[in-house]
């Protein structure tokens, strides 16, 4: 058996398709093993679950791969840990909140008046003065603030409301002052801490104070946090004024672009304004709770950061949820292997045994088996798969595999049956029958082992179809919500209209990964075919 395998391998490796196929397979197996070792299970879960809270602060959102960007801006973290003494936990609403975040002030005074009167709130307050140096004309893609609060877990569970807001005051090298309000969205992370990621988005109002032009980004952000989609609103006049003051042409902008803070215009395009930026920022997080008086010493600020997100990431870029595309490609690989191999090998095995029996039984039993297989072969694969997925609602990868096996086992039956027919007419089978060898033994010991290698080639050649079908289903919205597959990456690209927005890295790379994966098995399958089915040899 092993000698046979060795000589077969040698024949496979003699063809160029075999060589390339085996090499690609080895690389992908190593990558898949690495993905499982490094990311199973937490990292894989995080890929789906962390798209709101984990990735947005760590990676820039929707940026191209670095090799296409000429003017790179590396993601720059301005950790403000060293100024920890600047933060405090207070018992009163600071009066300047009325000026810097009037909506929060109003909210607290109207909606939470009873709680406020009972003193059931804590305010975590951070302020920071510092500078940011931009050395080149490269622009950050985004500016984000991170505020991690330490809130006890029992307090989190008891209807605690956390309102967070703040402001940032940036004096640019050219003397313009940008004053930006920001409102945040809270995410629970782990047991103890609540992390607040504050992307700065908003419309801008213009104020002239002491001859300085001040722009305010209002907290009515244009970013809908609930479904993470941009709401397209028309650009208002103040924003247009800001753009025209900076000399930036207004094209199709529908939202305040945070890059504008650091930008100037050069021949109509946005370029960075190098120099020193003076930053003053203040963040508030107001914790309202029934238990605030009991837990006053446990509330605090764990960590805060100001981050200028880069304008490119890695070799593959990132998607709209800031997840690196390369990570998605890596995590999708084990799933592709798992689905492709399970479905094709199990279904081909079932089909091979079924076809062998259908060929061995030349009476009515074989005829019935063939009729059933004929019905199965008459079902168009993808439409029926879509129908079943629709009837189920969302389906997990496991049930998808079972459905795919149920639909595709009949594939090899006809070929296998004709092979089994030929073999079962051989003299030694007749002899075995005459001697009284039981059917089971004849089928499994004499006929099936001869057919088995050929069905393996069929199985290998069927893998691409399965992977492509999964991707197609995912594109229609029937993907497994928990599994990071390439199909779902493509679906995300389709959903955010990446083709028309020009985010090509979001679909080119997952598609290429799919093509390379599928091609691997086609190449190997075509190299194996002549060995196992000698008729095809030429």
């Amino acid at each position, binding site marked *: 058996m092993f000698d046979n395998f060795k000589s077969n391998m040698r024949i496979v490796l003699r063809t160029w*398709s075999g060589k390339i196929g085996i090499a690609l397979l080895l690389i992908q197996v190593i990558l898949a093993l690495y993905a499982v070792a490094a990311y199973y299970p937490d990292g894989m879960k995080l890929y789906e679950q962390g798209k709101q809270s984990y990735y947005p602060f760590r990676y820039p959102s929707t940026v191209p791969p670095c090799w296409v960007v000429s003017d790179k801006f590396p993601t720059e973290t301005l950790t403000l840990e060293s100024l920890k003494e600047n933060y405090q936990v207070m018992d009163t609403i600071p009066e300047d909140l009325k000026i810097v975040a009037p909506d929060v002030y109003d909210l607290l005074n109207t909606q939470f008046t009873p709680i406020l009167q009972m003193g059931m709130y804590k305010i975590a307050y951070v302020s920071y003065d510092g500078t940011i140096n931009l050395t080149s004309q490269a622009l950050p893609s985004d500016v984000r603030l991170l505020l991690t609060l330490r809130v006890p877990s029992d307090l989190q569970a008891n209807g605690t409301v956390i309102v967070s807001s703040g402001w940032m005051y940036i004096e640019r090298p050219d003397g313009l002052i940008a004053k930006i309000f920001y409102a945040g969205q809270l995410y629970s992370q782990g047991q103890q801490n609540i992390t607040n990621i504050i992307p700065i988005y908003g419309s801008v109002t213009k104020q002239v104070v002491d001859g300085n032009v001040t722009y305010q980004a209002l907290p009515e952000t244009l970013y809908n946090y609930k479904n993470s989609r941009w709401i397209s609103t028309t650009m208002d006049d103040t924003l247009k004024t800001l753009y025209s003051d900076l000399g930036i042409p207004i094209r199709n902008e529908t939202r305040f672009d945070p890059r504008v803070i650091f930008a100037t215009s050069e021949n109509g395009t946005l370029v960075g304004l190098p120099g020193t930026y003076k930053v003053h920022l203040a963040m508030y997080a107001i914790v309202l709770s029934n238990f605030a008086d009991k837990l006053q010493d446990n509330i605090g600020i764990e960590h805060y950061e100001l981050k200028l997100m880069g304008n490119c990431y890695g070799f593959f870029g990132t998607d709209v949820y800031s997840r690196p595309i390369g990570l998605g490609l890596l995590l999708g690989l084990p799933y592709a292997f798992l689905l492709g191999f399970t479905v094709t090998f199990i279904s081909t095995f079932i089909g091979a045994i079924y076809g062998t029996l259908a060929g061995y039984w030349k009476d009515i039993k074989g005829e019935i088996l063939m*009729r059933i297989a*004929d*019905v199965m072969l*008459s*079902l*168009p*694969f*993808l*439409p*029926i798969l*879509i*129908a*079943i997925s*629709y*009837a189920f609602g969302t389906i997990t990868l496991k049930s998808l595999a079972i459905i795919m096996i149920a639909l595709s086992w009949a594939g090899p039956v006809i070929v296998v049956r004709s092979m089994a027919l030929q073999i079962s007419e051989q003299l030694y089978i007749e002899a075995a029958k005459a001697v009284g060898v039981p059917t089971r033994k004849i089928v499994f010991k004499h006929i099936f082992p001869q057919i088995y290698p050929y069905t393996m080639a069929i199985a290998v050649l069927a893998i*691409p*179809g399965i992977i*492509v*079908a999964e*991707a*197609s289903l995912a*594109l*229609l*919205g029937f993907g497994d919500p928990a599994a990071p597959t390439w199909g779902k990456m*493509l679906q995300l*690209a*389709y959903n955010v209209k990446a*083709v*028309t927005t*020009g985010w*090509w890295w979001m*679909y*080119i790379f997952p*598609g290429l990964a*799919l*093509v390379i*994966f*599928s*091609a691997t*098995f*086609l*190449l190997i399958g*075509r190299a194996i075919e002549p060995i196992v089915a000698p008729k095809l040899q*030429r």
Partner: protein
Amino acid sequence: MDVRWLAVKLINFLIVLVIVTFIVAAIFAGPLTDRQKQAIRQEMQQLVVGQLRQPGGQQYKEYIINQYVKYLKENNLPINNETLEQEALRWWIDKLTQEEIHNRGLDKPWYVVASRYTKMMLTFQPVNSSATLETRGFFWYKQGDKNAYHIILERVPFSVLLFTTSSALTLLIAIPLALYAARRPGGLLDNTIVSWSVFSVSMPWWWLAMVFIYFFTQKYHIFPKVTENIDPHDIGNLLSKAALPVITVTVLSVGDTAYRMRNILLDVFNEDFVMVARAKGLPETVVLRKHVLRAAAPPIVTIVLFAIVLSVFAGAIITELIFEWPGLGKLYWDAITANDVAVLTVLTYVTTLLYLVTRLILDILYTLLDPRIKRA
């Protein structure tokens, strides 16, 4: 032609059709019945509310309340006077709904319901769309028709236009390529065809569609932008919109088609009669035309056509979606997003029917073209 053989084929086809239709009906039986039950409840609600508004409404309400109180007493349930009226109305509507569901036979076991749907499909009984889908006024139907068959039928010409054009183009390009490649196996063209077939089979067609749209409409403005607005009566508009989809599908199917043809031709080139013809000193063109092509034509026509048809059902559904091309594939997406069970059911049935019929036709064609195949 053997009539008995044809009759057996047709009977076999009909049996398979019934079973396959039953499978489709069984898949959709659950969602379809749920949708119908919802509709019945809405209907009953409207009925009761309408009757209450009419002149004798007050008596009707009292009657309902009396019935409800009677029901509560029979079952020893507590009577809550505050919410009695609301509860009674809800109970009455529920009761009417249950009765109507029973009358229409929707509470029967799934196989009974499924066989009823099977009968409805096989006899092509008109089905109305269960959500918002309606005809869009292409070709022969007026806008706003809710018949699921009409919604589907007005999309068929789009799919047919796209895939017959690209199939014809594919054959036109692939035949010379395959002939040339088969005469020099291992040559540059041959290797190109083999590698391209590997790639075209292993990629989702709709992915290449995305890439092509990006390159040809976004980066280089060679083709018009992909939009949903298509006017089938404006031929120029139609053709300009169809150009990129046709090119994409052709580029993809040429690879595998040429590869399959090349394999068939290689087999024929190795046959003895070709060697004899060559040994006789016949010119190569004559060998090709009279001996090779004549022997290779039947398998080429059928296998290749079958491959194209199969690929239509496999990959093309979603290719249409990417191109916003309003064919059957796009209708799948429309029905799924509109959550329209009725249209999706009929669509799956029609697709399956088309698939079965094409298989039957190709099967017969293959046997007719190739006398070596045993008719059994």
